[in-house]
């Protein structure tokens, strides 16, 4: 029993890091994605093409590669690492890579959601003397949110699991913590089961996320 308590304690510590990366990524990527989606819909063609190129590159290459490049390349070029050497630096680099990556995916979901709102909604706002800003925030936004909840749920569930990619730059999230017991951790060696045990954390957490997003979907059911 003692070993279980020690492992769970270590995994909890790792999962806290997982959770931190998940929350910070969402808080950064949700608004940044909206800004990127405006860029990709801009009437100013150069901005539109620049934004779409960035989205193409970010979505077209592995997140793991982006993490490695962002964490190691600046050090090679500058001669010193802007991230420092500690866990805080690894977290910062991970968060930035995740926010950029997920913002690009979110932006495409937003774009689909915004363009899916009938143009008549915007025209109705215009003839009522509403500003474009009012039309977006008072008319389009909620209709867009309703449309994007299902695809967004998919991305958010993927994000929960993708946080594990940050271990490639030795960010000490839950899988890193579990895997450590295969060698030696907290005085125990050669334990395989803690690694599998990490799966329970993802399952439970994704269960919670699914329930919450389901509630949001239901809450928006009052209109069609």
């Amino acid at each position, binding site marked *: 029993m003692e070993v279980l308590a020690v492992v769970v304690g270590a995994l909890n510590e790792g999962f806290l890091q997982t959770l931190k990366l998940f929350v910070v990524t969402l808080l950064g990527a949700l608004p940044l994605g909206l800004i990127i989606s405006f860029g990709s819909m801009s009437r100013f063609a150069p901005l539109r093409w620049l934004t779409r190129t960035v989205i193409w590159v970010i979505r077209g290459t592995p997140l793991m590669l982006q993490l490695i490049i962002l964490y190691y390349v600046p050090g090679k070029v500058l001669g010193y690492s802007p991230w420092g050497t500690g866990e805080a630096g690894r977290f910062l680099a991970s968060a930035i890579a995740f926010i950029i990556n997920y913002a690009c995916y979110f932006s495409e979901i937003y774009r689909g959601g915004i363009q899916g709102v*009938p143009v*008549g*909604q915007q*025209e*109705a*706002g*215009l*003839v*009522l*003397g*509403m*500003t474009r800003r*009012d039309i977006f925030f*008072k*008319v389009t936004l*909620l*209709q867009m949110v*309703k449309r994007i909840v299902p695809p967004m749920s998919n991305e958010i569930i993927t994000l929960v699991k993708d946080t594990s990619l940050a271990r490639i730059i030795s960010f000490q999230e839950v899988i890193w913590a579990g895997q450590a017991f295969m060698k030696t951790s907290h005085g125990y060696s050669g334990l395989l089961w803690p690694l599998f045990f990490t799966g329970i954390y993802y399952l439970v957490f994704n269960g919670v996320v699914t329930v919450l997003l389901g509630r949001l979907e239901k809450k928006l059911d*009052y*209109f*069609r």
Partner: protein
Amino acid sequence: MSAILDVQNIEKHFGDTRVLEDITFSLEKGQALAIIGSSGSGKTTLLRCLNFLETPDKGRITVNGETLFDTADLSTQREEEVRRKRLHFGLVFQSFNLFPQYTALENVTLASKLLAKEQPDFKARKKQLFADIDTRGKELLAQMGLADRAGHYPHQLSGGQQQRVAIARALALSPDILCFDEPTSALDPELTGEVLKVIRSLAEQNTTMVIVTHEMAFARDVADQVIFMDGGVIVEQGPAREVIDHPKEERTRQFLARYGEN
């Protein structure tokens, strides 16, 4: 009587296609004008030009003596002023375009409340202003026969009820001229009556209206003036009964005969 609306030489192209050509007409205050013609004749585009949803390539639009748009005068084409100019016109769409996330009453009051925020003393008088707007919104819904539907969302209403909410919404800002774009074309035949009845009562109260419609009998009874359009030009215009009962132009006769058969 002087004209409340004066439209001179409006022209509109979509790419190489000329959609409107040399459209000139005027409308007196309190009168209803029906625009008839087959699909693709330019009726809807003309209405959209009046509401600044399309920008004419040529021409002039004057309301109450104020030039709202003139291709010869660049100062009338400033983007930031278009929003204010739109308030001279109300528009009721063929497909209602109610905001689905708001109740019937909220649909009617939303724009008024947003405009109220632009008043300098808004903060001090917010409660009173919003209460007044809600009262007026309820009155308008009652006028549409929808007093008991104020709290309903659009999807809970029939098509005819939705269109009546849309009419109340357009009236809420007290436009000088209320425009209708085929207001009954998206409705089941048994629901057109209730909407036409409302428009008829507006005409009886001398609301200035421009109505694009396929309902010939309605146009003849309710409108004071009729414009018949074909291929982007006005073929014939005049008093409603005269144009519909005794058309002078061959094209008008053919169009009305087709409608008589249906």
